[in-house]
């Protein structure tokens, strides 16, 4: 392995972060339901909110969901707000109706929203009461409100709500935390097995009943960079965080696997043995796809908190030049290995004032702009190539076998422009 892929051990803080406040063009945490309800197959997400919440979910998810969704909204109306109807009673009635329709549901999340938070509707109390009433369906709660959460925090919050549910264990185990596509999860299982890491668990599980255990000998390896609250809750249960790069790209995947395996006492030679071939294959595949990306500039609007590791991947493995790396929230502890690998010339920005950021983006004229769905077509119409960031959340991008696919997601908009003659 080349020296360049060895991250320095000491976390370096970048002080030159551009912090902005203004209009934030980001999703709220409710959007996390769009993938979480598919990940945990017997879970149901009931948003207690307004018509806006229901509309958001269907607009964000509508184009992607072809089966009946395992989510719904209990829409607050005037009677609930005026106290004419007891909102708690109304909620019970709706949950009863829902569970009657879907008896297969084992885990029900009551999801708080902006209006439920503002009127201080106590969903914790509701979850406790409903949990007692509906034996056989665990009822938990979290907030996905836009006043408290941004996009992928909608995964962090339900995972954090699951942590107290996890059984206790003293066993020495590696716990991989963060929703991954099933194909990716299976690949990681095989790789860890090849290194002799037998005691391996994943959070979230595919079924509610398969919740992993946690305890003082649990080593927590984060698969996603946006798991602030979940990480804290697991640490409170004794788990110890394993600092690592995130498993994006060949470099990131090797470093991530190595960190996890080392924490479980696997020898360096065994790690190399298990990772050398797939890493070489991933590097070769990325190189082929990344040809088109070499030397091109890229600008990230804040969206999923994946921006920092993604920028590390496209700059170090695809030869791109990062102009600005925007993130809704910069979690320095979890990004400690990532931040030093970002190129110095890239502007790191946290938060957003979308108008000013658009000004900077237009001035910089990047070859590729990574942004949300509200901005992509308008920027394309201005002549800029864009990659919708949501696709980076909804595609399997982690691990060796997906590294080239990830490069491909960035390359495709450019390839398309080269093809089109209209």
């Amino acid at each position, binding site marked *: 392995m080349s020296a360049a892929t060895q991250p320095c051990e000491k976390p370096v803080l970048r002080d030159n972060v551009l912090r902005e406040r203004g209009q934030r063009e980001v999703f709220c945490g409710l959007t996390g339901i769009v993938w979480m309800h598919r990940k945990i197959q017997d879970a149901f997400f009931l948003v*207690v909110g307004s018509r806006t919440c229901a509309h*958001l979910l269907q607009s964000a998810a509508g184009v992607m969901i072809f089966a009946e969704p395992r989510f719904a909204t209990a829409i607050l109306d005037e009677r609930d707000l005026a106290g004419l109807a007891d909102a708690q009673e109304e909620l019970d009635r709706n949950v009863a109706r829902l569970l009657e329709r879907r008896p297969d549901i084992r885990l029900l999340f009551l999801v708080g929203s902006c209006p439920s938070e503002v009127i201080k509707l106590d969903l914790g109390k509701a979850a406790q009461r409903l949990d007692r009433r509906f034996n056989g369906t665990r009822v938990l709660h979290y907030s996905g*409100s836009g006043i408290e959460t941004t996009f992928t925090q909608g995964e962090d919050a339900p995972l954090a709500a699951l942590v107290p549910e996890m059984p206790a264990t003293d066993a020495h185990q590696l716990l991989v935390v963060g929703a991954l596509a099933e194909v990716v999860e299976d690949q990681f299982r095989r790789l860890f097995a090849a290194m002799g890491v037998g005691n391996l668990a994943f959070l979230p599980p595919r079924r509610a009943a398969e919740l992993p255990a946690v305890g003082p000998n649990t080593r927590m390896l984060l698969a996603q960079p946006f798991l602030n609250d979940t990480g804290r809750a697991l640490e409170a249960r004794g788990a110890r965080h394993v600092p690592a790069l995130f498993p994006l790209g060949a470099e990131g995947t090797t470093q991530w696997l190595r960190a996890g395996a080392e924490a479980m006492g696997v020898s360096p030679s065994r790690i190399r043995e298990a990772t050398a071939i797939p890493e070489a294959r991933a590097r070769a595949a990325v190189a082929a796809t990344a040809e088109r990306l070499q030397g091109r500039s890229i600008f990230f609007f804040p969206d999923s908190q994946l921006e920092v590791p993604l920028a590390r991947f496209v700059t170090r493995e695809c030869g791109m030049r990062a102009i600005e790396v925007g993130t809704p929230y910069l979690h320095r502890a979890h990004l400690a290995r990532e931040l030093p690998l970002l190129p110095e010339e890239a502007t790191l920005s946290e938060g957003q004032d979308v*108008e000013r950021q658009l000004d900077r983006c237009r001035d910089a004229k990047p070859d590729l702009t990574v942004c949300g769905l509200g*901005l992509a*077509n308008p920027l394309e119409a201005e002549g800029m190539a864009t990659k919708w960031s949501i696709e980076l959340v909804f595609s399997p991008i982690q691990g060796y076998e997906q590294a080239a696919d990830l490069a491909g997601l960035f390359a495709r908009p450019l390839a398309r422009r080269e093809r089109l003659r209209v």
Partner: protein
Amino acid sequence: MQLTLWTYEGPPHVGAMRVAASMRGLHYVLHAPQGDTYADLLFTMIERRDSRPPVTYTTFQARDLGGDTAELFKTALRDAHDRFRPEALLVGSSCTAELIQDDPGGLAGGMGLPVPVVPLELPAYQKKENWGAAETFYQLVRTFARGTRRRERLPGQPPRCNILGPTSLGFRNRDDVVEVQRLLESLGVEVNVVAPLGARPTDLARLGDADFNLDLYPEVSGQVASWLQRNLGQPATKTVPIGVGATRDFLREVAALAGVEAPEEPATSRLPWYSRSVDSTYLTGKRVFVFADGTHALAAARIAAEEMGFAVVGLGTYSREMARDVRAMAGRLGVEALVTDDYLEVERAIAEAQPELVLGTQMERHIAKRLGVPCAVISSPVHVQDFPARHSPQMGFEGANVIFDTWVHPLMMGLEEHLLAMFREDFEFHDGAAPSHLGHGKAVEVAEAPAAVAEAPAPVVALAPEATAWLPDAEAELKKIPFFVRGKARRNTERFAAERGIARISVETLYDAKAHYAR
């Protein structure tokens, strides 16, 4: 509190956004929490709009709630004005901002902005998207047209009208405007203003330069049309020109309002001939279920019954504002109207009616897919597919052509359907088979869907120890009945048997029951 899986309409501020995004020179500053910016993608993704909708959000967060959210609003409003320099501003709250009661209208009023500011009060916990669009359009017209007058038409001047109602994200509104303009041209009527779509605030000040108005989408423009009638004395059309009959009625109505001769033989559509051609015989009496916004539900019901020769077995709308008209139409067609915005209720009603074709929204497309019934989309809420690249109106004679094609497309072609009925046991040509022009691979899903939907699937042989049971021959015969009526045949036969104390249902019982219920 209402449990929803899908919602037919967004919140009222989305209706306001549709009006703002339809117009030019207007900017909407919305007091709203982070996350409400999702609404931008309705325009940029579903409609493929090439610019951001003209909306600024304050995107307040929890930490702002302890501080001064009113100040945040004022800053956002001033910045939006300075950056976009609109001719007029709309200000208002989304659902969460409504709860914190910052009063955007009052705040904006005290800021001395150099352009008109129209405050919107859109109660998010009572009202919905179409109401929000109608109210926004109404407030804009009141602001800009108040105190103006209707022009006196001088001799020799051509008659002139306004086209009211088309908006951004409206179902095929973009193309409907073109068709309606074509119809007006055929009558020699000039168009004064089209609004909201494409209008500037200043255009609203000259609405009075027209002799009358076209109220094309009463959900959005009804209130404005009646205000203009009261205040400027402009009459408005009542007919929405969707379908051949309605288009002819519309031409007569416009001609009367314009004081011109209605054409003897108006340009027409291919629909009448296509419907009369023998190939269409197989459409006769096809059971259709219609559910849409009020305007499109009414139009579809009339077309289905009078122009396609279908049997309307269900008619409903989520537009409560138009419930009365829809009920009246349902009464004429001999069905009970379904007025609801509860997707689950619509699903139940469709399953119960066992239609052969569903004419609905994107929601009913989901329902129909689950039930294995063909579906054509006739109304908002919309999907990216509802903004086709080609000209694809619903209104006027070309609209009728589009409707004929769209509704027939999901169905089996005539002879194909007959063969299917004859050779039901062919392993490649069973009842789950999709029409051959719609490709393959759906068979299993379609065949499985009806069972998955039945609330409690009927047991295959015995109902209960003491109840009626199906003999194997009868059960096999039942399977030869087309799947969309099989459930009904089963229930009818069982009821027939139970009423007569028949414990074992034979093939004879099945056909006795069929003959009994055929009367």
